């Protein structure tokens, strides 16, 4: 086995390290900790971060790539490696990915979607042919299918529930050991939601997630739970592979936007003068070109570059990955202007405050003033903007891929998925499952990101926090999402 580090993989690890570092900082900083506690004590924030966490795990599993060693042929001294890089997720999904059908099949179906003429018992008949994988263990799908699905569902429910009950028991035991309350009190508090952290909502989300995952996993042993697409590939596999693309676009683009906007915004606002003019000129320039256009032009140029230099990338996966990376880069460059303007405005205000003036009077150097005294006071703006932009990048990817200037058509992404499934809506009978799966997954990711962003904004934005102190707004604070 030979590890492969794709360009985006390295950045995924970098983002992971960055997040871990940030969490460590939050632990050691009292103010930050209090703010995060305020945000995460909301049930909505906790639930959505659990959902996001699951998708993050999927994306991480899809970011560990390696090449398998090929069986050693006689006469070869060195082991050869497969030309295709696999990820851990690929390995997990291998049985499903290799269980290809010939064409469309409905979710949880044992027969193909369209009638075909084929030989049966020596006679030529026109009927729905059996699938190669879906329900191949059934003798007579017409009568057995419903029973088989329901029995598997019950099995999944049983398995899931026993797992949930076990975890809850362990959780209660830990809570008892920590707080010293009786089981009865603990359960009462848990049931009525009078706990410090939203344990009840967390347990509920956990249960729903465990149940649905076991159900899908168990039924995937014998069926394509989300059906197959035109080429007979499992829709579930494609959707799970798309999760990484979506999160990489969201995360990596943020990683491009952050330093760019922060550096330029702070220097423009603090130094004023010609530096300010130049930076303002730069971002007005970029903002005045329609985003789609800049992205389309850059992607086209990149395509020309890739076509000219075929030898740079070893595998098609690396080529597609490079395109994904550049897309993030370009998306970041086109969208840093908003945050940059915001940071500049805030820096303008901060630099006139007394503590900055006195720092300067003490002779503290400019970079040090920026780093120690200005940037920490801008972090709430940056954080709020980051979490709010994340979901818009995920949505933008789908639209761009749909127009044809997004990710490589070979990369699994929701945009590519929707684009290929678009024509299916015109077909009779209707092929609905590809689109439904793509939109469903995307909706889940974006909704949880949006809800988390809301909670973070409410906790970190001084304006909303101030408002919650005034009597009129305290009512609204209670109910606002």
């Amino acid at each position, binding site marked *: 086995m030979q590890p492969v580090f794709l360009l985006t993989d390295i950045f995924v690890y970098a983002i992971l390290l960055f997040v871990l570092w940030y969490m460590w900082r939050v632990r050691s900083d009292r103010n930050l900790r209090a703010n995060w506690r305020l945000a995460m004590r909301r049930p909505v924030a906790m639930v959505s971060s659990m959902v996001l966490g699951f998708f993050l795990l999927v994306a991480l599993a899809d970011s560990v790539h390696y090449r398998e060693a090929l069986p050693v042929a006689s006469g070869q001294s060195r082991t050869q490696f497969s030309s295709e890089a696999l990820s851990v997720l690929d390995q997990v999904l291998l049985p499903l990915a290799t269980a290809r059908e010939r064409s469309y099949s409905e979710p949880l179906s044992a027969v193909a979607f369209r009638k075909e003429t084929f030989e049966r018992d020596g006679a030529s008949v026109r009927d729905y042919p059996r699938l190669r994988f879906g329900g191949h263990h059934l003798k007579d799908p017409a009568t057995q299918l419903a029973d088989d699905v329901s029995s598997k569902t019950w099995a999944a429910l049983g398995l899931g529930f026993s797992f949930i009950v076990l975890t809850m028991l362990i959780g209660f035991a830990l809570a008892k050991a920590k707080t010293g309350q009786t089981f009865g009190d603990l359960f009462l508090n848990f049931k009525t939601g009078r706990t410090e952290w939203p344990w009840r909502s967390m347990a509920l989300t956990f249960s729903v997630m465990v149940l649905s995952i076991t159900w899908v996993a168990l039924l995937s042993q014998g069926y394509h739970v989300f059906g197959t697409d035109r080429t007979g590939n499992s829709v579930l596999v494609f959707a799970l592979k798309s999760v990484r693309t979506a999160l990489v676009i969201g995360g990596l683009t943020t990683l491009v936007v952050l330093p760019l906007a922060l550096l330029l915004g702070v220097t423009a606002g603090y130094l004023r003068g010609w530096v300010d003019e130049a930076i303002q*000129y730069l971002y*007005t*320039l970029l*903002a*005045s*070109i*329609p985003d*789609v*256009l800049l992205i*389309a*032009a*850059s992607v*086209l*140029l990149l395509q*020309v570059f890739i076509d000219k230099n075929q030898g740079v990338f070893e595998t098609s996966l690396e080529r597609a990955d490079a395109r994904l990376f550049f897309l993030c880069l370009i998306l970041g460059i086109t969208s840093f202007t908003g945050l940059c303007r915001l940071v500049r405005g805030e820096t303008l205000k901060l630099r006139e405050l007394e503590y900055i003036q006195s720092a300067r009077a003490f002779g503290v150097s400019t970079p040090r003033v920026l780093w120690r005294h200005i940037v920490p006071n801008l972090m709430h703006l940056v954080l709020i903007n980051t979490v709010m932009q994340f*979901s818009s990048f995920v*949505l933008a990817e*789908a*639209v761009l891929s*749909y*127009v*044809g*200037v997004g990710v490589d058509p070979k990369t699994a992404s*929701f*945009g590519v998925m*929707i684009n290929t499934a*678009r024509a299916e*809506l*015109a077909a009779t009978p209707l092929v609905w499952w590809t*689109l439904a799966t793509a*939109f469903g997954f*995307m*909706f889940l990711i*974006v*909704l949880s990101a*949006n*809800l988390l962003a*809301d909670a973070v904004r409410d906790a970190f934005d001084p*304006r909303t926090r101030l*408002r919650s102190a*005034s009597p*009129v*707004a305290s*009512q*609204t604070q*209670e*109910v*606002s*999402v």
Partner: protein
Amino acid sequence: MFRFLTRKLAYGLAILIGINLLTFVLFFKVNTPDDMARMQLGGKRVTPDAIEKWKAERGYDRPLFFNDKAQGTAQLTNTLFLDSSLRMFAFDFGRADSGRDIASEIVRRAGPSVALALPTFVVGLGISIVLALGLAFFRATYLDFWGTVLCVVFMSISSLFFIVMGQFLFSRVLQLMPVSGFAPGLDAWRFLVLPITVGILARLGGEVRFNRTLFMEEIGKDYVRTARSKGLSEARVLLVHVLRNALIPILSASVAVIPLLFMGSLITESFFAIPGLGSYLIEAIAGQDFAIVRAMVFIGSFLYIVGLILTDISYTLADPRIRLQ
């Protein structure tokens, strides 16, 4: 006022020159005319002669920035960059690679673009203000709570969903209207209803929530308490006092967008095959016709700058405390 305007105009001119340089470098330096010719003539088996001929027809055979062979000032003027850029500032865009006159094409396509973008913008703004006002009126009730939740849900739905579902519902299930296309004149409404609805729906969630925040901020202010203590009804406080003050930021923000409406909505137009400027641009990108792309970017930036200046002016009109400087 006059000094303010001249300064802003000079700044706008600087931006336009920058845009021009940027697009030129992107499309002629990074992607050379040779590449363009090869792309247009098709495939890799194109003779060098054919490429030279193609370039000569369009004047692309001249040097990019500096002409060694010419004398005097012609060293700078007889180049691809300066010649095409100067023409552009006189709004002479020349011909597309396909041979059509770009300026007349733009004029022809502006109509459908505006017919789509203007109603989407105006109706969308109206609906979002009304809904946001409704949420603000019922603040701190379940209606407000679930309304805000619904806004977040709407924000989380991909605009592609509205497009795909709209096309599916309206043209296939209900058979009310064609999937895409356009008709000149008054018949156009049949093709426009769906894109306009989709355009409004896709932006509704975010706008309602944003406007609601504006209203809520306004409601917390002292003058609102004064109005209430005078004994005015809540509806009157909201509709007269709060609305008028909250409209200032909303409308000023809209002024920046209005000139850009002429550019059309890139995405919607190409999905619904409406022959406006947005789809013109997308087609030009797909066909690598950079003469069109440069012209369109130039016009887009021009309108953006007009929007910026109008915003500044509208702020002073709406709020006398702000002075132009």
